[in-house]
């Protein structure tokens, strides 16, 4: 029992070193709460790199409102509970802007926490900037005044994708395969609804859900797709679930068109090249490299030079930080309570091609032009390939901002 006293002493010693709080106001501190430890770092680090890159750009031209910008990383281990403690840590260190993206589970937890925090601590304003979590609940049932998102939600992307597909006469039979969790269901549900509305003649020959990040061999699924006679596959898969699916399709010679959300990373381009699916895999997102837009190429080029071995980047992070800094400058304040009104309804020329997008006040979703691209041999003037495959993303269609608008059920409570 004596060890009780020992453990209490230990706790005291540890907490002593925890209780640092610096309230330096010389800099604008932005907290980045994403996985930064272990292997998760390879994903979370990309966002941190990009934020640092943008902060250095801003600092080089004198900072924001005369203050330097500093990015502080917090490792959340993709765990919602740890995330909340890390957010608390950031707040205690005087941070008011929290950037987070990986994992809808984390995003919902963080958004919920920050909303309650602001409500329970009147006078304190914390904002959650979300660059990657796209579960539609974030901008519908669980929307918040303190949460902004720059990635198009699953519904928006599907709206744009089906608008593109509806004009393709040769699509007759569509197979849906998605990961068995909320996002996968959101994707497949939207696809069914929208295709049914826009192209009732298309037959949905398969509606498959597979467990999330657990399948190591997609051969049985590919066999099913083949047996269904589908000519087109729509999938919300990301990461290894997409790379492996395409790999298995290539191995067994399945010949269909693929419509995807995330064919840009984690080995997917490599798998596409290996399977020799030239111009058969489509991806929709807010920007690709080969759009021939000068400012973007310049900025992306500088970024890639600095982080040469990790060239992946998110155009939306540029959109996000550019807009937030603009709002801070317009408001002349770094307090979210002051700059949020400027951010709401802000119009912004998007990073990828300089076409206009806007932040919608109803749900704090950024609407922007979306680009549908297919992976294939690079053509004239197309400089950027993916994963050193020699193949790059080539524009197939542009979806203007107005074609991406969707209603929201958000009933936002504003302070």
């Amino acid at each position, binding site marked *: 029992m004596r060890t009780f006293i020992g453990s209490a002493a230990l706790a005291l010693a540890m907490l002593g070193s925890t209780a640092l709080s610096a309230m330096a106001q010389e800099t604008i501190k932005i907290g980045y709460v994403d996985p930064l430890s*272990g*292997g*998760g*770092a*390879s*994903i979370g680090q990309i966002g941190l790199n990009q934020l640092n890159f943008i902060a250095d750009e801003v600092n080089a031209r004198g900072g924001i409102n005369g203050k330097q910008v500093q990015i502080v990383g917090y490792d959340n281990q993709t765990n919602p509970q740890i995330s909340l403690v890390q957010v608390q840590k950031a707040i205690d260190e005087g941070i008011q802007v929290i950037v987070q993206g990986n994992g809808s589970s984390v995003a919902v937890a963080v958004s919920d926490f920050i909303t309650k925090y602001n409500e329970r601590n009147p006078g304190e304003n914390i904002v959650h900037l979300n660059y990657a979590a796209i579960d539609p609940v974030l901008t519908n049932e669980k929307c918040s005044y303190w949460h902004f998102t720059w990635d198009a939600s699953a519904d928006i992307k599907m709206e744009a994708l089906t608008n593109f597909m509806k004009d393709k006469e040769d699509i007759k039979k569509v197979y849906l395969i998605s990961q*068995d969790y909320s996002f996968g269901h959101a994707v497949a549900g939207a696809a069914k609804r929208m295709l049914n509305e826009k192209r009732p003649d298309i037959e949905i020959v398969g509606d*498959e*859900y*597979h*467990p999330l*990040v*657990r*399948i*190591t*061999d997609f*051969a*049985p*699924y590919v*066999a*099913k797709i*083949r*047996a269904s006679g589908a000519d087109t596959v729509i999938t919300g898969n990301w*990461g*290894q679930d997409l*790379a*492996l699916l395409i790999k298995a399709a290539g*191995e*067994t*010679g399945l010949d269909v068109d693929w419509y995807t959300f995330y064919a840009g990373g*984690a*080995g997917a381009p*490599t798998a596409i090249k*290996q399977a020799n699916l030239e111009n058969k895999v489509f991806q929709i997102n807010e920007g690709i490299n080969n759009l021939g837009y000068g400012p973007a190429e310049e900025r992306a080029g500088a970024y890639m030079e600095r982080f040469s071995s990790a060239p992946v980047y998110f155009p939306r992070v540029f959109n996000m930080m550019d807009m937030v800094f603009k709002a801070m400058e317009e408001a002349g304040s770094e307090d979210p309570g002051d700059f949020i009104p400027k951010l709401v309804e802000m119009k912004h020329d998007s990073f990828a091609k300089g076409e206009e997008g806007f932040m919608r006040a109803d749900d704090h979703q950024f609407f922007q032009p979306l680009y549908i691209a297919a992976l294939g041999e690079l053509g004239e003037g197309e400089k950027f390939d993916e994963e050193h495959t020699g193949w790059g993303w080539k524009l197939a269609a542009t979806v203007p901002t107005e074609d991406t608008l969707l209603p929201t059920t958000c009933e936002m409570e504003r302070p």
Partner: protein
Amino acid sequence: MLEIILVSTLNGVLYGMLLFLMASGLTVIFSMMGVLNLAHASFYMLGAFFGFEISRRLGFWPALIIAPVLVGLIGMAVERYGLRRVHKHGHVAELLFTFGLTFVITEMVEMFWGKLPVDYRVPPSLDFAAFTVFSVNYPAFRLFVLLISVAIFIALLLTIKRTRIGLIVQAALTHPGMVGMLGHNVDRIFMLVFGVGVGLAAIAGVIAGPILITQSNMAALLGPILFVVVVVGGLGSLGGALVASLLIGLVQTFAVAFNVSLADLFGTSQLSAVLEVWLADIWRVTIAQIAPIMPYILLVLVLIFRPRGLMGTRDT
């Protein structure tokens, strides 16, 4: 439908044989040393990553030899300097030691190769379609993996039946606890068996890496299933491990092929309307969706009806 059955059978047997490659080493180690090596799947992962790293420098064939040997040596070092020390603290400490090892190996792999899958490719000399049925290509590499695991299975069988070490292993399988009385070189035999056991897992890693996935979570994905195999088969039974490996391989592969849900079974009746409300989420879940949890359901069922496993003879 016929093509699905054919392809599923081939893939199921393939997956089952890979599982058995690992389960065999695990079983032998367990029988002789009384410790279930929780890090067994981690050595499989090491095999895959070593195979990847070596094959991109020296080619796949050297990797097929070098990687398992390396992993086997690491395994022997782990046994000599780790497990043997812990042995005196009892079985729980041994289990915990191998459990800690899974952490450290995973973290090391992530430290060197990251969390994203690495691009471990099928060797070009085997990158073609072995045969085509119903317009499905069956890749030659898969056939190769199948053949090699069967070959190793036969070699293992011969070793156990025909050699001195094999006799000792057999003795261990039937009379655990007797091995300690075999003489002064028992430590060396333990070390060797541990090395060979994890080496077998590493072979599985090298050959499975290109067709499955080579990533830092591969051990965590496979490990639990591996333990299901040895518990369902019966702890310490090689025959049980073989049956359970194939069973789980086939069950998992075939389950994917079926899109039947409770809703389909009951059709549209008064009863099904009531059930739908009560069962909610479960109602529309298809067998394909629950394919990955089938092994665990099997585990629970086996434990309820045959607590010692399919072919097990002893407790714990």
